[in-house]
């Protein structure tokens, strides 16, 4: 290969040939963040439109007392779907799309850490969302409210498949959210521009980082709750049935353990948009960057101590309620830190009222009001008065629409020139703003009064003459005004794309890296990756865009058809590896289709199909992983600026390691939720201690222990052998670890079945079975991973330097062993703790 630097045009052609996506059916194989990010946002907007139409149906029904626009059964489906679509199919995926699209550009990278995972997440989202909307069109939409409280959602009171659609569909979509969270965290920590230390990251990357970690910890409780409820509905194992030792409140705990952090998961990315957009239009750098980062970390933690404030009315002891009430008030402080930082930025700057700024002012008005009513409902006696009334509906819409939709629309106008290369057309955008702002306040400001006058949520109609008539009518008029405003916004976006003037580079005079790119950016973002020397890289180097295009910086010369970007040390931002990203592939699509088959099979009770779907998923996943890696130890290669770096397969802290660690964090959150559920049932649920206790065979326990501890031991010995260059010994020890894992899986799964009560008889037996199955499943997956490691060793993909497969397998086996030990301890101690004497 010639080392003569190519001209900018030739460099562009060479890079486009490497990074571009094939036309036609090749688009299905796209993994590039530009494409996947836009797909996410477009799809989320379509779901937003569907959710909006459902909202209009609700308002049409409630416009007049005794209205018969739709029957109550249909109304139940409509309001359930409105909440479900807006929360799960619009808000979170819109954030995912925005982050997918923006993060690499703002961090100075060419793509995300795991592009195929992004594509897989998108297909899961699209299929899962279509699955739920398809059910609605078929008339079997979920109808138990967007939070699916038990016992209403149990098979006794919801016998159709409506609730199953929600439980399975949302779990399927959550795969996408977990994938995105792993993707964003690994990317922010490892794929940044040279010199972009943590203290110099664009502020929005901090917001995305905190949000992603919150998703990793916050979503698993809901996934667990959905799995348990689906098991109860399908197989009769009681977790939420008080007659058999379960408790409906367990569902509420698991749901809100997810549901309250979810509010911040939705708000924080939007706040990141504000912290990015507002300083540009205030013409002053963001005041209080450091304090905002600290506030974000505080919010990330405090928001996990609020979930019980959704349950103040269920009869929890005063002191416990007090803890959650205090935390609910405390979280207002880091939120206020941000609000004051934004106000200070406005005060110190010379604000200009461009369109994005108008939407930000709308945000301030609406969100601050939502925050204030939030403090009101954090006060327990007040909450008891307005619980389940329209006051709460008004509050949550002020928070969510004010805190997410308005900043997002500001962001849409701000970044659309980046996406389309064209400038906004102002008149339509302003008209849309005023329609939405007036319409929204007409709808929801009055709804506070409707709630205070006693109107409960989720009623499909109400009698005339009790003071609710005119309030509901005006709310409905406001709702339709809002809808017209959003339609105008959509038209404006289309018009901008078609008729907007061509945008110059950096049209707003911003100082963050994405504006150094050509508009719209090419598939590879920057032809060379510029260094970062402060928080405002374009202020330091206003000509950075041209320097990058001229190939004056990192990775300017394409080679070997590699899709290259820089990997950095997480804290300092010094380049420590050359990341080689995978090519476009259809495997993510096939994997998501196989996953969809499993979910559909369970929904339709065709369990034999699961036996087909699971091997297909595993096969796709193995094919996916197998296609990556190197068969030779890499040597350092020049990366520009006189520096060199090792390709990532030869580096210990490569993104693949981070991916596994982050996945296990989410997994651990799910397991911790399961342990919480087990302890909750034992302490709180009626019908305990159980009538019969499980007796565990000592020999089975010994076999389980041998397998659980043997697998990581073999893995550790294999890794030690690999360090000494003995690849064959590593392969053999991996096989041994696979055998140990299999032993553990069989022994642990057999434990609760060996003696004692049938799992359907009591929540104790059911929970013990789920605990055992969790550990057994992990041991079985550890076996597959160990076999994969042995095969990789044999195929030449593993060496002392290229040790990701054995290290990740060991991490998994170690995690499984810890979970197994915790489960065995709990199962052994449970009878003693329950005060029921010794095991039979």
């Amino acid at each position, binding site marked *: 290969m010639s080392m003569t630097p190519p001209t900018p045009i030739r460099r562009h052609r060479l890079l486009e040939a490497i990074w571009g996506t094939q036309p036609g059916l090749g688009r299905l194989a796209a993994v590039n963040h530009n494409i996947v990010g836009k797909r996410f946002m477009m799809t989320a907007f379509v779901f937003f439109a569907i959710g909006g139409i459902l909202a209009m149906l609700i308002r049409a029904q409630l416009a007049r007392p005794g209205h018969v626009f739709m029957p109550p059964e249909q109304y139940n489906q409509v309001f359930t779907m409105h909440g479900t679509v807006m929360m799960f199919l619009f808000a979170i995926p819109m954030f995912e799309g925005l982050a997918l699209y923006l993060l690499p550009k703002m961090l100075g990278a060419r793509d995300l850490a795991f592009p195929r995972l992004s594509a897989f997440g998108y297909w899961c989202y699209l299929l899962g969302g279509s699955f739920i909307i398809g059910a609605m069109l078929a008339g079997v939409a979920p109808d138990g409210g967007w939070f699916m409280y038990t016992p209403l959602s149990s098979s006794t009171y919801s016998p159709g498949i409506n609730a199953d659609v929600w439980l399975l569909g949302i779990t399927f979509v959550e795969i996408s959210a977990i994938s995105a969270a792993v993707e964003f965290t690994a990317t922010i920590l490892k794929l940044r521009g040279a010199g972009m230390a*943590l*203290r*110099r990251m664009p502020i929005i990357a901090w917001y995305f980082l905190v949000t992603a970690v919150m998703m990793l910890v916050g979503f698993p409780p809901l996934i667990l709750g959905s799995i348990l409820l689906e098991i109860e509905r399908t197989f009769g194992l009681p977790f939420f049935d008080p007659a058999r030792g379960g408790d409906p409140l367990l569902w509420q705990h698991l749901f809100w353990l997810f549901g309250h952090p979810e509010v911040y998961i939705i708000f924080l990315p939007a706040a990141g948009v504000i912290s990015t957009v507002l300083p540009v239009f205030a013409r002053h750098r963001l005041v209080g*960057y*450091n*304090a905002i*980062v*600290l506030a974000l*970390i*505080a919010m*990330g*933690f*405090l928001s*996990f*101590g609020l979930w019980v404030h959704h349950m103040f009315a269920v009869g929890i*002891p*005063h*002191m*416990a*309620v*007090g*803890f959650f*009430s*205090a*935390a609910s*008030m*405390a979280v207002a402080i*880091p939120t206020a830190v941000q609000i004051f930082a934004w106000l200070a930025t406005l005060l110190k700057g010379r604000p200009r009222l461009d369109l994005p700024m108008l939407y930000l002012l709308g945000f301030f008005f609406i969100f601050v009001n939502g925050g204030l009513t939030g403090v009101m409902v954090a006060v327990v006696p007040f909450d008891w008065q307005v619980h389940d009334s329209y006051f709460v509906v008004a509050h949550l819409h002020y928070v969510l629409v004010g805190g997410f939709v308005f900043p997002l629309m500001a962001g849409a106008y701000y970044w659309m020139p980046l996406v389309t290369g064209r400038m906004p057309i102002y008149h339509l955008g302003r008209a849309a703003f005023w329609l939405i702002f007036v319409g929204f306040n007409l709808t929801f400001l009055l709804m506070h009064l409707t709630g205070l006058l006693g109107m409960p949520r989720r009623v499909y109609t109400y009698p005339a003459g009790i003071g609710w008539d005119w309030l509901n009518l005006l709310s409905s008029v406001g709702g339709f005004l809002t809808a017209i405003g959003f339609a105008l916004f959509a038209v404006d976006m289309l018009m901008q794309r078609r008729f907007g003037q061509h945008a110059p580079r950096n049209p707003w005079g911003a100082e963050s890296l994405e504006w150094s790119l050509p508009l719209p950016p090419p598939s590879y973002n920057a032809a060379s990756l510029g260094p970062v020397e*402060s*928080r405002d890289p374009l202020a330091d180097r206003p000509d950075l865009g041209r320097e990058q295009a001229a190939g004056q910086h990192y990775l300017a010369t394409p080679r070997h058809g590699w899709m290259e970007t820089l990997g950095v040390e997480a*804290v300092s931002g010094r380049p420590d590896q050359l990341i080689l990203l995978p090519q476009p592939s259809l495997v993510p699509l096939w994997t998501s289709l196989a996953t969809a088959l499993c979910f559909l099979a369970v929904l339709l009770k065709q369990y034999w199909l699961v036996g087909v779907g699971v091997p297909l998923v595993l096969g796709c996943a193995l094919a996916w992983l197998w296609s990556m890696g190197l068969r030779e130890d890499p040597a350092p290669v020049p990366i520009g600026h006189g520096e060199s770096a090792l390709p990532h397969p030869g580096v210990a802290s490569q993104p693949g390691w981070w991916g596994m660690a982050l996945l296990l964090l989410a997994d651990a959150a799910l397991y911790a939720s399961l342990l919480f559920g087990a302890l*909750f049932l034992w*302490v*709180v649920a009626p019908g305990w201690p159980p009538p019969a206790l499980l007796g565990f065979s000592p020999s089975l326990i010994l076999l389980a222990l041998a397998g659980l501890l043997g697998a990581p031991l073999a893995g550790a010995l294999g890794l030690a052998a690999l360090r000494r260059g003995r690849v064959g010994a590593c392969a053999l020890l991996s096989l041994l670890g696979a055998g140990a894992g299999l032993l553990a899986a069989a022994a642990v799964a057999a434990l609760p079945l060996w003696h004692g009560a049938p799992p359907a008889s009591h929540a104790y037996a059911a929970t013990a079975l789920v605990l055992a199955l969790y550990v057994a499943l992990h041991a079985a997956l550890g076996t597959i991973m160990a076999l994969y490691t042995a095969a990789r060793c044999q195929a030449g993909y593993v060496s002392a330097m290229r040790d990701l497969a054995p290290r990740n397998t060991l991490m998994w086996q170690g995690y499984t062993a810890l979970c197994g030990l915790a489960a065995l301890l709990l199962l052994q101690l449970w009878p003693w703790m329950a005060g029921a004497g010794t095991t039979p």
Partner: protein
Amino acid sequence: MTLLRRLPGVAVATLAFLLWSSAFLLLYVAVSLGCAWGWDQPAALGLSLQRWVLLGVWAVHLALLGTLLAWSWRGTRWGSAEDAFRPVLATGGLGLALAATLWCGLPVLLASACQ
């Protein structure tokens, strides 16, 4: 102490709020288990065993966070916006977590445990 100074600010802030989480979780567990196991009867000095456990959990976390904050404060060097990043996150994080632990634990002094 040396380790604390070597840790990145984001790690110290995370550690600080993990301690807040630990206090919050243990207080919640102690209320639940204490009520389930009947520890809410007067035991010593007019207080129940449950109340003593709650006070103990709260005090240990406050002491730990207070000590870490004092250590962190002594070594703090404030500077320009970028230089102040670590101290704001480390010392500020410990201070905020201490305040949050103090605030969220107040019901231990004020509320009835099992009613």
